[in-house]
């Protein structure tokens, strides 16, 4: 592998310098932050709420536990996690993007959720938390934007307590041809147009479709989790594999 290839990574279908990807992803999310929730509802026809509920259920979070919600953005999962951990537990809403984090923080404060929620602007590849400090680390629709996914998984594994679990909720690869054809048409042709019309940003939503295709397949991600040291790794396909929840335990 040449040095140029080693120092480059994908940003959608484009190859970019590794150090530039973080800034480019930041640019995408700075641009969509204000319209993020409405776009999620529009583009997934509201199904993202079911995907998130399934992920929360699979996280097996109990009252009193400590949860890290990585790439938590506007705080959808943090709200659901907070309900499960109750007042005795706590949730850290973390995101690399300050704009998304600010939107999430304002939204949670507006809902009166302040007591047991903390906010942190972090890079998932090098989490600034102590070893063995969380019962569950969840990254929902965020891992595909991370430059070094293996480093992120290792970092998540490090901060997990023994018995804790990593939950990765992410767009994945359809399991049958019909879904794939429909999904490809929808995400490459329609989604950028909806993005252009509603969020006035076609490129960001084209990046979304491309980055999903560049994301590792279900089995590959499962292998990456095992390589990071997680055990009992498994995945659950939803909507014919359009989205998958991966779960791995640290023992």
């Amino acid at each position, binding site marked *: 592998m040449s040095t140029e290839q080693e120092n480059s990574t994908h940003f959608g279908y484009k190859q970019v310098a590794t150090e530039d990807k973080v800034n480019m992803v930041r640019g995408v999310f700075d641009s969509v932050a204000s319209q993020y929730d409405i776009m999620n509802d529009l583009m997934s026809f509201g199904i993202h709420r079911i995907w998130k*509920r399934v992920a929360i*259920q699979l996280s*097996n979070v109990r009252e009193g536990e400590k949860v890290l919600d990585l790439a938590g953005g506007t705080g959808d999962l943090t709200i659901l996690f907070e309900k499960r951990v109750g007042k005795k537990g706590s949730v850290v809403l973390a995101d690399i993007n300050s704009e998304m984090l600010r939107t999430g923080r304002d939204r949670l404060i507006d809902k009166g959720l302040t007591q047991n929620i903390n906010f942190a602007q972090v890079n998932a590849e090098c989490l600034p938390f102590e070893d063995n400090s969380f019962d569950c680390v969840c990254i929902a629709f965020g891992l595909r934007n991370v430059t070094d996914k293996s480093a992120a998984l290792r970092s998540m594994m490090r901060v997990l307590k023994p018995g804790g679990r990593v939950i990765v909720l992410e767009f994945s690869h359809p399991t049958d041809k019909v879904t794939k054809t429909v999904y490809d048409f929808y995400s490459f042709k329609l989604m950028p147009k909806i993005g252009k019309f509603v969020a006035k940003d076609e490129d960001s939503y084209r990046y979304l479709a491309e980055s999903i295709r560049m994301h590792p397949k279900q089995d590959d991600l499962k292998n990456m989790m095992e390589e990071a040291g997680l055990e009992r790794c498994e995945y659950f396909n939803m909507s014919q594999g359009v989205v998958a929840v991966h779960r791995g*335990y640290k*023992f």
Partner: protein
Amino acid sequence: MTFKPLFISAFETALNHYLQLDDNVTLFLKPLESKIIAITILPFNETLYLCPADDKIQIIDYSPEEADTHITGSLVALGLMSLSSNPKRAFFSGEVSITGDLTLGHQFQQIFKKLDIDLEKHLAHYTGESFAHKLSQFAHQTHDWHQETLNGLRLNITEFLQDESKDLPPEPEIALFMQHVDQLQEDSERLEARINQLGNTQ
């Protein structure tokens, strides 16, 4: 594949809504807080882990910690056990097996019995007090009448079968017989253990 988490999520929501109907549910759940009750449903061999918290029961599909109590049985047997006035019968007949902390299992079963749900109060939120009261009175009267009629019918049939036609033995006789069977079973198990022990020492 995602059916199970969706089912658990819906079941958990329904169960907690039901529990919330009793204002004093915390009182019953507090002693069970932070315990884990595993329930294995046969023949699917699916295990659910019930984790009572302060005012709700959380259900998870896997627990790295060992459960305090493990209840195994078919859906029908478990359902009947929770409805039955004498849940111990289900254990002794072998339809439901329970391992681990037996007291915890019993306490858990008792929760559903102790729940005192004031339907009239909850109905009043939607229909107004006067209508809710009338409806609840009517429901109580119908329930009482049914109970009385059923009770009368049961007593008549029992009397006919036990005293008049003499087709069935009376209850105390059965209890005594079952006691003897249990005694015999225990004795034979002791004997078996003793024989095994003798066999091992030789």
